[in-house]
């Protein structure tokens, strides 16, 4: 007798031989796709700016991937993307989403080199776990998706910095409450250090990594394919080998950030706890605007996002069950 048979007959005997069949659960109504990338962030840690910069660059990736295509899957996304282009052009910074219902972006990405064709569904909305907003957990919270935890160290108070590991526990508890077991369904988590331009103590190698983002410089340029000559060196990502090299660099940066985070007690505890929870943890570092030179909601120099594609590359890589990154 199998486990399921034994359970069924045992229950029948307990009820005097009468079979009580529970009604089948109703099928869930057809709804929108769950997010393929779930963003967690306290308010003020740069979620909207990060998404703006990421989506802006995603639209222009065919400068480095000639076969790449990106198009919105619904009218709301299309309108939102147009608005992002407007914002970037005029140097506008996004307004706070703390009291808004958020914006859902649904994109189809094609020709993503080793990752092929992917649907990207991501929400810019107040975080139901880490933000202080009173929103309830949305039904479509993508606990199965790779999670990005946006963390602006420059905006953390001294106390918040000391309890980073506990904040991480909040995230894990919220996931567990929805029935996701961390051992059988390990969380894939990219901790993204945002607003890196404002960190004076950042290791020099990481600062240099952000400064020397040739891909971003090319994607930000308005002169199309001339961008390659503008950045002064062949653009990365043009070939599978080049992408592989980029991902090796991404791995090294992950290690460098992890080493740096582990110089803080709370960072060390975060890494240890993540290991305990079987989390596939990666670190990335970004600057969505490139500088804090802004007044009255306007950037005073052009948007200059740095390394904002890295978290997405990690998400794609972690989602991929076919190819695994072999760093060395």
């Amino acid at each position: 007798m199998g486990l399921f048979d034994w359970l069924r007959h045992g229950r029948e005997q307990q009820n005097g031989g009468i079979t009580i069949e529970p009604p089948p659960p109703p099928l869930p109504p057809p709804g929108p796709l769950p997010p393929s990338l779930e963003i967690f962030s306290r308010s003020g840690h740069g979620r909207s700016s990060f998404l703006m910069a990421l989506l802006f660059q995603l639209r222009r990736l065919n400068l480095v991937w000639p076969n790449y295509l990106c198009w919105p899957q619904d009218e709301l996304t299309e309108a939102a993307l147009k608005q992002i282009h407007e914002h970037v052009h005029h140097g506008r910074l996004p307004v706070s989403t703390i009291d808004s219902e958020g914006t859902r972006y649904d994109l189809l990405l094609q020709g993503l080199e080793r990752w092929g064709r992917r649907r990207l569904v991501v929400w810019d909305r107040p975080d139901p776990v880490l933000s202080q907003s009173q929103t309830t957990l949305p039904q479509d919270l993508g606990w199965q998706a790779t999670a990005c935890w946006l963390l602006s160290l420059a905006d953390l108070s001294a106390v918040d910095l000391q309890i980073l590991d506990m904040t991480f526990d909040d995230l894990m508890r919220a996931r567990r409450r929805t029935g996701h077991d961390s051992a059988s369904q390990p969380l894939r988590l990219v901790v993204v250090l945002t607003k890196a331009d404002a960190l004076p103590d950042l290791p020099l190698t990481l600062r240099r990594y952000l400064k020397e983002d040739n891909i971003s410089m090319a994607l930000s340029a308005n002169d199309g394919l001339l961008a390659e000559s503008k950045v002064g060196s062949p653009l990365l990502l043009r070939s599978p080998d080049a992408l592989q090299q980029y991902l090796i660099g991404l791995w090294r940066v992950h290690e460098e950030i992890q080493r740096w985070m582990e110089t803080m007690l709370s960072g060390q505890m975060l890494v240890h706890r993540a290991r305990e929870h079987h989390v596939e943890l990666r670190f990335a570092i970004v600057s969505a605007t490139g500088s804090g030179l802004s007044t009255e909601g306007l950037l005073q120099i052009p948007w200059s996002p740095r390394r904002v594609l890295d978290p997405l590359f990690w998400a794609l890589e972690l989602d991929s069950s076919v190819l695994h990154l072999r760093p060395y």
Partner: protein
Amino acid sequence: MTFLEVRSDPTGFPMLRVGSFGYLHWLPVTKIQFEHFLCDARDRAFDAQWYKEILALNPRVAPAKISWNNYWHALMTGVLPAEAQRFAFWCGDGYRLPTAEEWNGACLALRNEPVRDLHELGILRDLSPRARDLVIRSEAAAELAASRMGYERRLADQFLMRLGVLEWVTTESGWQALGEPFPSFVGNLFAPETGSPISPRQSNERRLAPLGFRLLYVNDSKDAGPTSEGRV
């Protein structure tokens, strides 16, 4: 062995001759220097309200209280290019804001020079006690700031061409800025070593906290201030 001439600007602050570029201010123009001008200038535009607005962007700090996390408060920022030019005009013939090429050229030359002792350079000679205090404390503060950033200091760093302020320079495209402020002053990933200036929007209208300037003196006439020689 290279020798650099040192001279003083009309406010008594040091300028050093850098190669063929002329004399460059040792530091970006400070609030103490600009206050000399404010006391003397008869322009109505530079009144108390004007200065209050400036200080709201980047407050003042007394030389005795300068430290690694506030030394930029000692520097004059928030000025528009035309106001910086007005200061240069007040300083006299031969004083002007550098071009981007001059700024980059001087920065490159100074980056090739090691850090020097302020006394040996001769820049502390003839300084007022307040100015002397400011120069010495700014140097100590900037050294600490560079250490936090992991930067190896060069003579250009002593000039605060890195970890100072964004400095107005003239270019063919108009007013642009060069420099790399300390990230606690304004977050940035600027790389002045690449030689590419940044272009603030509405540069002639909008005051920006990290925008300051320094002057170049290119007139060889000897009546603009005392000169001395210091070993570099």
